């Protein structure tokens, strides 16, 4: 393992702080060191590429350039949106020399595209950490727990840039779920979009999309959902109550970050994983884990 850079992105420092807390906790348990990219900036998320292509490359490029300057060769971007923007920037810089020149001039920093391995959370866990190492840390197998993995769009699409798993039937998160001893639940909308960025500006649309995913997961008998993206999390978790009200049907599905699930299987105290930070309480899950453990 080379020197590992960490790009938290804005959400992990705000609304999705649980993700960062749990992530750091499990890495601590695994004895893996990562370092935050110094003075990183927002990658521009969906807004930049929505209305200004060049900006959407330049903003993440600054972070990559800093990481390169500081001698890292691998970046972890746990937020699916951030990893997607970083990968997009890397891809464009590699394929558009004119733009690359403009951007490196503007940044007054150089960057060699494709020199850095950019990893989303799942890639990091499977690739950099490795299944065996995770498995060896599982102290409290979650056997009996039924877990649906929700991937959303940004982890797998577009495949030519993301280069991650199968775009229609991804399995990486399910594999991680299986490592914790829990039972992965198959359902139809693993990669269906939750509405992402339009959460604030188009709440009705987002609720329709997210609702569809949640009800389908519910129908397939999952106890909870795991995600690897703050946007997905906030739509599935924060909006869940509202969706129940709108469609007049209870869901009650706790939404955990994959790092939290892994933390639980490591036997880490739920409080230390910030599991109480979610809007839909995870009590039912914790209770079920206790019951299963007692059996």
């Amino acid at each position, binding site marked *: 393992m080379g020197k590992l850079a960490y790009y938290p992105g*804005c*959400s992990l*420092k*705000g*609304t*999705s*702080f649980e993700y960062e807390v749990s992530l750091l906790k499990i890495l601590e348990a695994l004895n893996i060191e990562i370092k935050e990219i110094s*003075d*990183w*900036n*927002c990658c*521009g*998320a*969906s*807004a*930049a*590429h*929505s*209305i*200004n*292509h*060049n*900006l959407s490359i*330049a*903003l993440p490029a*600054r972070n990559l350039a800093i990481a390169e300057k500081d001698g890292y060769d691998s970046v972890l971007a746990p937020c699916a949106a951030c990893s997607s923007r970083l990968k997009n920037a890397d891809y464009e810089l590699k394929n*558009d020399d004119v733009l690359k020149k*403009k951007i490196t001039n*503007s*940044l*007054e920093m150089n960057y060699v595209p494709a020199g850095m391995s950019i990893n989303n959370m799942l890639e990091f866990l499977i690739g950099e950490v490795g299944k065996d190492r995770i498995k060896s840390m599982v102290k409290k197998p979650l056997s009996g727990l039924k877990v649906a993995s929700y991937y959303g*769009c940004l982890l*797998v*699409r*577009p*495949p030519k840039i993301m280069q991650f798993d199968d*775009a229609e039937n991804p399995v990486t998160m399910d594999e991680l779920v299986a490592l914790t001893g829990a039972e992965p639940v198959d359902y139809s909308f693993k990669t*269906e*979009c939750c*509405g*992402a*960025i*339009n959460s*604030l*500006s*188009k*709440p009705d*649309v987002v609720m*329709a*999309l997210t609702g569809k995913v949640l009800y389908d997961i519910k129908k397939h008998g999952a106890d909870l959902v795991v995600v690897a993206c703050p946007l997905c999390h906030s739509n599935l978790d*924060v909006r869940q109550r509202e969706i129940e009200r709108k469609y007049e049907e209870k869901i009650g599905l706790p939404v955990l970050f994959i790092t939290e699930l892994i933390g639980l299987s490591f036997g880490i105290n739920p409080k230390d994983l910030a599991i*109480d*930070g*979610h*809007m839909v309480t995870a009590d039912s899950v914790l209770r079920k884990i206790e019951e299963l453990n007692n059996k």
Partner: protein
Amino acid sequence: MKTVINEQNRRSFSSQVESMLHDKLAKCYQCGKCSAGCPVNFEMDYTPNQIIKMTELGMEDAVLNSKTIWLCVSCNTCSTRCPKGFEVTGIMDVLREIAEKKGITSKAEKEIQMFHEVFLDNVKSNGRIFELELVGKYKLKTRHLFRDMFLAPKMLEKGKLKMQGEKISGLNQIAKIFKDFE
């Protein structure tokens, strides 16, 4: 709807889009797979494949004022499944960017457009997103003061909304990036 094709306008618009997109409009053979899989198609006024054809025909006004380009959430479902490998998501980006540059404000979907603008302003002034400020400014601008606000107390309680934002130290660099590319 009837369209009289003006060859000159048609060419200049479609070639502008093609050059920004790095892809050819003629590649699309109008199979509609993009539209069929689009998660927000039910809200759109034109389907993605219609947007592509309309762009090819030079129907600039209709396209740039469409709801579709703002409703698209860039989920990439369309491009991933397109049998011709056409950059459907990309064309939505390009059309939004052209609309933005032309100062066209979407009538039906101005909130989405505004959200993107406020978001980038936030990045510009802080280098990072300060969510409370972002939400506040957005709400002020759209005057939807109360919508969504009921979530705020619980989010605060859970520690999800920070009262203080962070600013990065390289703000001058961010300013330069914005100056160079805005």
